[in-house]
């Protein structure tokens, strides 16, 4: 009955509150290894939810296991940058050493090896997660040693600490990374001005959301502050979106590693501005390893009267709690993130109403990106006019770029908005000739070598921060194919255009990859792009074909050289498809064969 006690302890820690289901499931899984049917039943009873609803959440997230998981669960990050660093060969070697097939639990239930979406270590890959702890810089020697440790059942806690070292790799600092603020400084300055004064400064600064969409932060806070709240217990909430899931993006990891105070202070500022008492940080499950360090920062801030009751002796109570995601990219979309915070599958809501009026627990909620909140501290301290002078006319301030791929110095580069792509490439030491740059991740834009004078700013190329570089030796078709499979895996399945469309696109790309492609398939891909962009429920489906569309337009030969015909080709080898029937019947007559082409 040890299991039951463990479940009850987790439930008690969360007050049997179903809206905390994500945390309940994660902590239960950490205690018991996986979420067995009887575990789900016990949790459902505990939170007084229908069992199907609990199971629905457990089944939605790829980091929750509703089947036995094995003592060691190795997940290789499978972003294109990991692939360029040779993750596929390393994974194959690991599987061979462990006598495993990828995705299958070993016969003895000891270990499984599989892939996962980008883990945010693109500047120090190939990366993986072992039992959800991040490992960087994999190589053949580490693969061999790791397989040995797994076979000998050495606990992960005793593995070489060096493997778990995550570097910041900050290469260029500007106003934000060189902020020089001490904890509480921005908050004290804001409290001088009062909530309305703070919002005025934020508006005057021109600060826009750093998650990519670029909505005015001041307006968002003002809308939220003015929303009355709903029901018997009206409240306001601050949510920090730290679900940095866009492949190629890792700036939030660095901010939270080295400037956590600034981010938490930004959340506190937002809480002060909108009249909230509670802030929630939604941190992606891949960054679980940061938990203790972040909790320590929160504890210190409570000790310093920067969180908790009567902050800085003013009439303002505010505290922050960290929630973890569980491996679902779509939760980066703010309304899906809120659903997840409430213990539900991360499916984007229908909007309006927007979170600023009906967000977390149906209350007014401001959801801001990590970097936005950090930047808000600069505005609070130095004023809106000071901040507005940085950057360009419509893109005030600076932007952190996560640079990876074919450059000598991958890492974090901070620039005032308006920097050219060429400048970034020069600073990062783009090796050899540059063929393409993927800005803002798979859902962003693919640039060709003709476009290097374009600028990073809302006027030209808006970005959440990813900046992946591909030199002339890379195959841009394979880049797009990697992204197509990423979206097919990450579609939440709610709407048909995206659920089916992402799969259709992935299969068309595979058809081309296996040499069965034709002009017909390319036409089909353009059709899918138009259909999904117009008919999908949220941004994931809308943007899922962006890399396809861009590479088809800018790198057409990468596709054309794979085409078998300019008209139509079957998707598979027709004659080979009769092989098993021939084998079983012993036939080899003319009727037992098919011409592959007519």
């Amino acid at each position, binding site marked *: 009955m040890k299991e039951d006690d463990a479940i009850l302890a987790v439930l008690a820690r969360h007050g049997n509150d179903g809206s905390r289901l994500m945390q309940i499931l994660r902590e239960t899984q950490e205690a018991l290894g996986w979420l067995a049917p009887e575990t789900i039943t016990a949790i459902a009873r505990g939170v007084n939810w229908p069992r199907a609803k609990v199971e629905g959440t457990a089944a939605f997230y790829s980091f929750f296991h509703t089947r036995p998981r094995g003592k060691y669960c190795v997940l290789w990050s499978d972003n294109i940058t990991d692939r360029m660093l040779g993750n596929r060969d390393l994974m194959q070697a690991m599987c061979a050493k462990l006598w495993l097939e990828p995705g299958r639990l070993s016969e003895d239930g000891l270990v499984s090896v599989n892939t996962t979406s980008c883990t945010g270590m693109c500047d120090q890959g190939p990366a993986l997660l072992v039992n959800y702890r991040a490992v960087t810089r994999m190589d053949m020697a580490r693969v061999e040693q790791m397989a040995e440790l797994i076979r000998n059942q050495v606990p992960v806690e005793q593995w070489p600490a060096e493997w778990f070292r995550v570097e910041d790799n900050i290469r260029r600092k500007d106003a934000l990374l060189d902020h020089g603020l001490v904890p509480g400084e921005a908050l004290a300055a804001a409290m001088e001005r009062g909530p309305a004064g703070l919002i005025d400064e934020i508006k005057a600064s021109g600060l826009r959301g750093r998650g990519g969409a670029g909505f005015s932060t001041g307006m968002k806070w003002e809308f939220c502050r003015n929303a009355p709240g709903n029901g018997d217990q009206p409240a306001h909430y601050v949510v920090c979106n730290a679900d940095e899931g866009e492949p190629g993006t890792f700036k939030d990891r660095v901010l939270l590693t080295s400037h956590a105070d600034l981010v938490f202070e930004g959340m506190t500022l937002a809480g002060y501005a909108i009249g909230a008492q509670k802030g929630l940080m939604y941190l992606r499950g891949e960054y679980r390893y940061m938990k203790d360090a972040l909790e320590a920062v929160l504890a210190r801030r409570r000790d310093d009267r920067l969180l908790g009751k009567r902050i800085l002796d003013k009439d303002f109570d505010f505290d922050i709690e960290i929630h973890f995601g569980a491996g679902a990219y779509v939760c980066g979309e703010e309304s899906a993130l809120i659903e997840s915070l409430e213990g539900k599958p991360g499916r984007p809501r229908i909007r309006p109403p927007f979170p600023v009026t009906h967000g977390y627990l149906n209350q007014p909620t401001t959801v801001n990106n990590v970097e936005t909140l950090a930047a808000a501290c600069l505005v609070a301290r130095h004023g809106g006019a000071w901040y507005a002078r940085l950057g360009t006319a419509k893109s005030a301030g600076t932007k952190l770029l996560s640079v990876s791929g074919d450059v000598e110095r991958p890492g974090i580069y901070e620039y005032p908005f308006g920097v050219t792509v060429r400048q970034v490439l020069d600073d990062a030491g783009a090796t050899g000739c540059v063929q393409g740059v993927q800005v803002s991740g798979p859902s962003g834009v693919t640039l060709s070598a003709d476009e290097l004078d374009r600028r990073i700013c809302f006027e030209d190329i808006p970005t959440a921060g990813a900046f992946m570089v591909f030199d002339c030796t890379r195959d841009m078709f394979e880049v797009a194919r990697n992204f197509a499979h990423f979206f097919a895996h990450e579609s939440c399945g709610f709407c048909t255009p995206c659920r089916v469309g992402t799969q259709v696109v992935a299969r068309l790309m595979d058809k081309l990859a296996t040499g069965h492609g034709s002009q017909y398939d390319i036409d089909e891909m353009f059709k899918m792009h138009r259909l999904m962009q117009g008919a999908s429920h949220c941004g994931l489906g809308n943007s899922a074909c962006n890399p396809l569309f861009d590479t088809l337009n800018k790198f057409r030969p990468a596709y054309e050289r794979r085409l078998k015909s300019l008209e139509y080709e079957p998707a598979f080898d*027709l004659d080979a498809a009769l092989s098993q029937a021939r084998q079983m019947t012993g036939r080899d007559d003319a009727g037992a064969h098919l011409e592959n082409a007519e």
Partner: protein
Amino acid sequence: MSEKTKLRVATTSLAGCFGCHMSFLDIDERLLDLLELVEFDRSPITDIKHCGPCDLGIIEGGVCNAENVHVLREFRKNCKILVAMGACAVNGGLPAQRNHLDLRDILEAVYETEGGLARGVHIPNDPELPLPLNKVHPIHEVVKVDYFLPGCPPPADAIWKFLTDLLAGRTPHLGHGLLHYD
């Protein structure tokens, strides 16, 4: 004024259940209107065995064996417009449920090891019989398809709307109410 030429239409069922054809017949008395506008070539309705040049070919069912491939290619060669009618033609449908099993295991189970078989039964190897493909495929994986008409089966009204659009020279558009499938 010369008589307006009728559209020539062929239909067939591959790995399907003829349910789509039954739904087609469900357009009921509108069949008479249709016959004013079209004439049938190869089709279960006419029992013509091979397809000649046609304006429109309608395919029910997916591709599960070598004969399906031949018939489908005959249609594609002869029809200016080829339509996948119903879930099996569009996606593989029910017959594709066998795709997660190995064909060799299926043949062995059905003809060799299952109970209730007559003595001496073996997997048939008569050249008259078409060989099954390793997997069942939607028809667009074997030939180019121009239009897809989803549903299991597509309702008669959807088939009617589709045909009348096509006959009137409009791009077929099912729209709300008639198109409610994945």
